[in-house]
């Protein structure tokens, strides 16, 4: 027993690769196996004929990537332009939603009365799929662009609102005691203590909101028009599966980048606090 343990710690040859490098190799291996099985399945005609082979998909992916910004009219645009349209909508809607959610969250975090009064509205509206708002948006705005912003704004409200409220109402009582012992005014306590203390929670809320908004924009654009969501739907009607797969990968990548950026922002406002 002890002998074995000894051998395990001393006699084991030092691995040539560190865990990160090992993981990367494994990642490449999984990718290759996956692509290989896909290619094999396509050549052996296991899938429906509409399903393209892996090599063809990679070729088409490369076609979309090599010229992302061409513009031959509204129904024939490069994937970069399509993404920009969706991004602009998501960011605008997200900004509108956040501009509502953060002040409201602060207000209900600070006041128990307002919190209790507003809570039923939040609890009922929050679980509703954002797409359920879409027809209402169309009825109110009579414009697909504005409706997209409306849906995204509503989507972006809830996580930010709830996180902001949580952050503001759960500020560590010792920070508040410091402000009290110094005789800080209410306003000064809010701006200098409560908001910075709640900042990590607020940014966490924004991060979740943006993630969901990015999920929702594709669905909303399928129902409205323009952007990457509409592209996905359009290419389905054209039976161009390779384009759909390309769009899925690109949407995922953009979502990942936005999430990472917010992760950085979260670290930046946290100053070693938990969360």
């Amino acid at each position, binding site marked *: 027993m002890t002998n074995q343990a000894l051998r395990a710690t001393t006699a084991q040859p030092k691995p040539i690769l560190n865990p990160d490098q090992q993981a990367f190799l494994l990642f490449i291996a999984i990718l290759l196996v996956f692509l290989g099985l896909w290619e094999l399945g396509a050549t052996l005609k296991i899938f429906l004929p509409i399903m393209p082979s892996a090599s063809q998909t990679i070729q088409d992916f490369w076609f979309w990537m090599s010229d992302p910004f061409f513009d031959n009219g509204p129904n024939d645009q490069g994937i970069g332009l399509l993404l920009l349209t969706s991004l602009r909508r998501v960011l605008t809607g997200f900004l509108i939603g956040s501009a509502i959610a953060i002040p409201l969250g602060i207000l209900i975090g600070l006041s128990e009365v307002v919190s209790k009064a507003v809570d039923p509205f939040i609890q009922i509206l929050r679980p509703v799929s954002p797409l359920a708002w879409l027809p209402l948006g169309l009825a109110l705005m009579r414009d697909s662009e504005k409706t997209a912003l409306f849906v995204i704004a509503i989507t972006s409200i809830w996580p930010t609102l709830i996180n902001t409220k949580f952050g503001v109402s759960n500020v560590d009582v*010792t920070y508040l005691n410091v402000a009290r*012992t*110094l005789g800080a005014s209410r306003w000064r306590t809010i701006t200098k203590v409560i908001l*910075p*203390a709640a900042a990590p929670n607020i940014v966490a809320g924004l991060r979740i909101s943006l993630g969901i908004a990015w999920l929702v924009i594709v669905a909303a654009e399928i129902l409205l028009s323009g952007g990457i969501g509409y592209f996905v739907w359009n290419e389905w009607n054209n039976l161009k599966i390779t384009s759909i797969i390309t769009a899925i990968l690109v949407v995922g990548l953009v979502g990942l980048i936005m999430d990472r950026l917010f992760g950085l922002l979260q670290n930046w406002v946290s*100053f070693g606090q938990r969360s």
Partner: protein
Amino acid sequence: MQSSKTMLSPETSAPAAAHLSLNNISKLFPGRNSWTDRLLRRTSKEFMAISNINLEVAPNRFVSIIGPSGCGKSTLLNIIAGLSQPTTGSVSINGQSVTAPGPDRGVVFQNYALMPWMTVAENIRFAVETVYPTMPIAEQKSIMQDYIGLVGLRGAETKHPHELSGGMKQRVGIARALAINPQILLMDEPFGALDALTRGFLQDEVERIWEQERKTVILITHSIEEALLLSDQIVMMTRGPAAQIAQVLDVPFPRPRRRETLDQYPDYHRLKTAMEQHLSYETRAVEESRIRP
């Protein structure tokens, strides 16, 4: 090192020190027994933490409070700080009754309570700016610099608390409490979370700083040596519930004091023994009451 007089402009300096009196203070924590509490199984009995505390602290005295843990020392300090209201009795400073927190009392917290998003300098500036909003910026900065120097933190001004050791954090805590020039300094086990060596350093620092900036100080501590090194008087509390003051010891050692030579004073061992006996008696009683309530 500068003296405290040059650190503060005349219009902002309050009377240098204050007489603190605690008159008949009791604190009853109300119990929870409503039907919602019962439903959630979080009922509690009402609890008389401290009762009938009377204490007079003369200006510029350094007074330590020592007692078994859970007896109500923090409760008492929070009442003096104005963070919590006594159920009966009153706190007065120079004869004026106080019921709310205020910058006449500087508080040093056990867990440092530094704002993580502010640098060392900003933490101190925040206090100065809050208490003296009309003071010119340059003067605020110079006060901040003086106190950073006083606690030996030059060079760490732009660091955030999470980059500091526990000892350095508490130096900031002390600087912040002193920078507003309070009449009374309240410290709740300020070194309780530090390792023994750092604690010793900070005790020596407090002794040195207090020689420069004489203030009325109330220090809550667990450490007999700490109390003997720093205090003019030691207040020993009984165990709770309804904890009271058992005895007040005078510590007659001349100042400045040095840790190494403290045990050469004839009274040292008498005082130390008295405190040890009191603490162990009370602590044992607490343990026994836990076993046989």
